[in-house]
Structures are given as C-alpha cells and as structure tokens.
C-alpha cells in the first residue's frame, strides 16, 4: 500500500518537474542536445517505473527488511527532526557552542539518557568537538554570540 502511495506521489512530482524542464532551453545552442533532454529522459523512466508500481497486480510481496512504524516511534522521529531543524536555524545565530550544547542535550534525552547524563554529556560533547575541530583540525566554526568574548 505504501508503495502505491509513493508511486502515485512520485508520478505527480515527475509531471510537475517535467513541465518545469520543458521550459529549459538554451538561448544560444551550439550543440544538438540542449539542457532539457537528459532530465526529461530520466523523468520519463522514473514515471514509467512509478506507473508500473501503481498498477502492478498484488503478488506476494517479498519480506520487508525495515520494521514498520508505531505511534511512539513516529513521535520520537518527528521530535528528532524538529531538533535538527532548530539546530540548523540557530547554528550561526547563537554560535556553535551554545547551539550544540542545547542540541546535544535534547538528542541525548531523546535517545534515553537521564537528565544529569544528558546535561553533562551534552556539554562535554559540544565543547570537546569545538576544541577538536576549531583548534585541532582548523575547521572554522561560528562563534555567534560568544564572539564578543573573544579578544
């Protein structure tokens, strides 16, 4: 069932993208193949496969490798995605260290740590990684609101 939903939405997306791609053409063409041929070819193939998936007869489906989702897990997954999005949003604004401490604490809680564990662990992970990357490996990281503390 999920496969058919996926195939259906796949088909829809392919159509939209194909309409978009139809409009691409080069103002000055030196070559016989323009910028739209290859993507259109791919979209056609994907749409074909999606059509087949949508209408193929129900056979005995091969056993799934991935377990299904229950309510509990899907709640945790949406929380996890929300945490990651929030982290990306405050990464530059707050700076690496504060945002990472918050993120690490939240993630640790999500993966089953106790309050104390997540607090101490999160802070250690964030500061440790900052020292490792900024000083040890020369990867510049945003300081954000801590920037004024420097100098």
């Amino acid at each position, binding site marked *: 069932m*999920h*496969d058919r939903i*996926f195939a259906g939405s796949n088909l829809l997306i392919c159509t939209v*993208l194909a309409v*978009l*791609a139809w409009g*691409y*053409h*080069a*103002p000055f063409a030196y*070559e*016989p*193949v*323009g*910028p739209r041929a*290859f*993507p259109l070819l*791919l*979209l056609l*193939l*994907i749409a074909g*496969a*999606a059509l*087949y*998936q949508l209408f193929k007869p129900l056979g005995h489906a091969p056993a799934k*490798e*991935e*377990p299904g*989702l229950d309510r509990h*897990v899907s709640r*945790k*997954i949406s929380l*996890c*995605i929300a945490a*990651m*999005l929030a*982290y*990306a*949003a405050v990464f530059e604004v707050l700076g690496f260290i504060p945002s990472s401490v918050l*993120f*690490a604490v939240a*993630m*640790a*809680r999500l*993966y*089953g*740590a106790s309050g104390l*564990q997540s607090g101490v*662990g*999160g802070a250690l*992970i*964030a500061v440790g*990684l900052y020292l490792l*990357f900024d000083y040890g*490996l*020369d*990867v*510049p*990281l*945003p300081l954000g609101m801590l920037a004024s503390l420097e100098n």
Partner: protein
Amino acid sequence: MDTLHYLGIGFGVALSPYNLLTAFCGALIGTVVGLLPGLGPVNGVALLIPIAFALGLPPETALILLAAVYLGCEYGGRISSILLNIPGEASAVMTTLDGYPLARQGKAGVALSLSAWSSFIGGTIATLGVVLFAPLLATWAVAFGPAEYFVLMVFAITCLAGMADNKPLKTAVAALIGLFLSCVGIDANSGVYRFTFGSLGLADGIQFVVLVLGLFSVSEILVLLERTHHGQKAVKASGRMLFNFKEGTSVFATNMRSGVVGFVLGVLPGAGATLASAVAYMSEKRMAHKDNRFGKGDLRGLAAPETANSAAACGAMVPMLTLGVPGSGTTAVMLGALTLYNITPGPMLFQSQPDIVWGLIASLFVANVMLIVMNVPMVRVFTRILAVPTWALVPAIAIITSIGVYAVHSTTFDLFLMIGIGICGYALRKLDFSLSAVLLGFILGGMMEENLRRALSLSNGELGILWGSPITLVVWALVALMIALPVIRAWRARKPSAVQVAG
C-alpha cells in the same frame, strides 16, 4: 616491468613518514567507525573529506586517508558482529552467522584474530589483483570515447539493479532519482538554471557531501531512534586470543577462494562488499561436507565473508581508478573527493599522475599490514568502545555531521538541505529503496549527461553513435544480460523444483 617500476614509486609515496602517519590514523579511525553500529564506511569517508580539505592535505595523502578508512571499516565491522551479534556495517552481516556462535562458545579471541587474518588475506589478494589488472584496464580504457563512456555508465546502473537480489525495480528507480538530482543547478554547457526554484543555494547544484551525509548520516540517526537496542551485552573476549596453526590452515582454501570471489564482485560496478560476502558465504556452505557446522560456529563460515568483504573493498578501487566509474557507495564518495581536488579519475590518471594512483595502491598494502598488526593486540581496546551508550554517540555523530556539511560552504542553507535530504532518504529506506543506488546515480549523473551530449555533438545529433562501435555493442549486450537477470531469477523462483534446491 613497468608495473614494478611504478609500484616502486607508489611505495615511495606511501612510505613517506607523513603518509604513513595518515594511513595509521585512517586505519584507526576506520576501525572505530566500522565497529560502531550505525556508522559505515560511506559516512566515515564522507565525514573526513571536509576535514582533509581543511587540513590542506595534498590529494594523494587525502586519498590514502580515505582508502585506509575504507579498509579499516571492513576490519572493524566484524568486531561488533562477533561480540554483539549486531553487524557494525552492512557488509559484516554474514559474519554474525558464525562469528557470534563462536564467541558464545568462548572462542571470541580465536574468532576475532582469525577474522582479522582473513581480512588481511582478502585485502592482499585483491590489492595484487588491482596491481595486475588496473594498468591493463587503463591502457584498454584509453580507447573509450564519450559514447563508450555513456554506455558503460548505463551498464553500471543496470548492473546495480540487476545485482540487487529481490528489488531490481526499486533499485533502478533509486539510481534514477540519484541521476536526476545531479541535474540540479546551473547547466555547465548552456548556463541554464535547472530545478533551482530561484534559490541561490542550489545554483551550484547539490554538494555531494551534503547529499551523502543527508542520505546516510541523518537517515541512520533516525533509524537508530527506532532500534535503541538495549539489553544486548557484548560477549567477553577471553581465553586464547590467537588462532593456532591448524585452525589457520583449515580455512586457507576458503580464504583463497573467497578472496578471488570478493575481488571479482568488487570490480563489478554496483555489486560491492555486501553482496560479495553473501556470495562467498553461500558458496562455501554449498561446497562444505554434509556434516558442516555452518551457522553454529564454523570457522570457514567466519573466514569466507570477512575475506570477501575486504577483497571487494580493494577491488572496488579498480573501476574507480581506471574508468572513473565507482563500483560502490564508498568509492563513489572517494571519486567525489577527487573531483573536489580537480582531479578527473579515468585512464589518463595512470599517465598524468602516477604518484597518486600508485601511491594509493601501495598504501592499500601498507594499510592492510597496519590493520592486522593493530587489530590483533588492540582488540580489547576496540571492544571497550562498544560500551559507549547510544545517547552519547548519536548527538556526537549528529554534530560532527553538521560540522562536516557546514565546513564546505559555511552556509546554514546546506544544513537545511541535508536534513531535507535525510528525511527523504529515511522515507526511501523505509520503503526498501537502496540509498547507495541514489548516491551512485548522483555521482554518475553529471558524467553521464556530459558524455551523452559530447557523443551526440560528435555525431551531430545522430543517435547511431551510441551503438556504432564494437565496444559499445559488447557493453549493450552486458546491459541486456543485466536486465534479463532479475527476470530469469523471478522465472526460476516460480518453478517448484527451484524451491527444493533453495530449501
């Protein structure tokens, strides 16, 4: 003779103190990454690319680092398989079948050392294979024009789908999605913005580090949420730590056979280490006597997949170096790293930059020796890493991933893009699509379109050039074979007699 001469140059590069140190660090990191469930070679290699870049490593050193990590992962994956019954990465799945029972019988030390030795033999056989066949293939591949390359990449994609055992269509769709994603961004030939939706962040195309880490790291983090395995206690590695001479000789033939199988499957585009270890295990099981103890702790069942996956990891270097067509997800990432250094892999690389190619090949030997030396005595240290709880591991992985993505362009747009790709990757994974196929498609996409357009420019739009030469015809025949393979398999599975054979 030429080969020996170049190999000498290669060892000169690989044995320089700086590169030796790099290989050592890579081997160490690789083993740790490999043994941690949830982190595989693809993530390990992808995470190190921004770091290698930031450190200003020269290309050959960076490549040596990545290759050492790759090999190290194949060594490390076995540790958690044997002690925890949880494969550290996909290609170590078969190792659990006989490795864990052996550990339960108190032979954990023997199993660990014997599997390290098997990995070593596999890696050595395959590296010898690389030395023999890569230059040969490279001289032959010089004759490839754009049309041949295009057809070859079609073959790589169909091979990927044909080899995927039970879901060829889904794998093909995954690869096509990857190919399509490579179209995003400015079209290099005409300057047209494709599928950017007006976003400046996408004008440059999707950065492949963003794609890799989104697909593999973010989706893995989400998968780990549903499988917080607790209550699994590692078997203590006690007793005899080294296998004895008798045990070593009893699996020697297995090692040899599996090494060759692994190398061949590694060279084939899209087959990779996971398939190689499964094939090696199955064929050893079939060849064994009736009174075998496969599945209950047979040493051969342990040696076969470990030999094969290391051999396949090395074998995958052959198509990457000679044709510029990666054979596995991890070599696809390495190829991406090379293009970041403005190096185009392919047959010309052997002539224009022999120190890179041969330095890499020689460092495969070096890394292999280092890994066996490191793995036998240090196994207790590595097992202690397995005790790190998930709640400490996952935030660290998530933050390192974000750093890796941020380091490429220093924009948070890439972070959002990575999360978006990760969510899509997670959904695809839940629907049983292969994420490696998406990645491989993405890496091949740019080259595929480029070669198709170049070929058609040469012929002035005449499609006939795509099947005009003998080489293309041979490759098309192989493509047809690969498309037929799943159909034949499905047909055979429907026949009742096949069920008895399988059972």
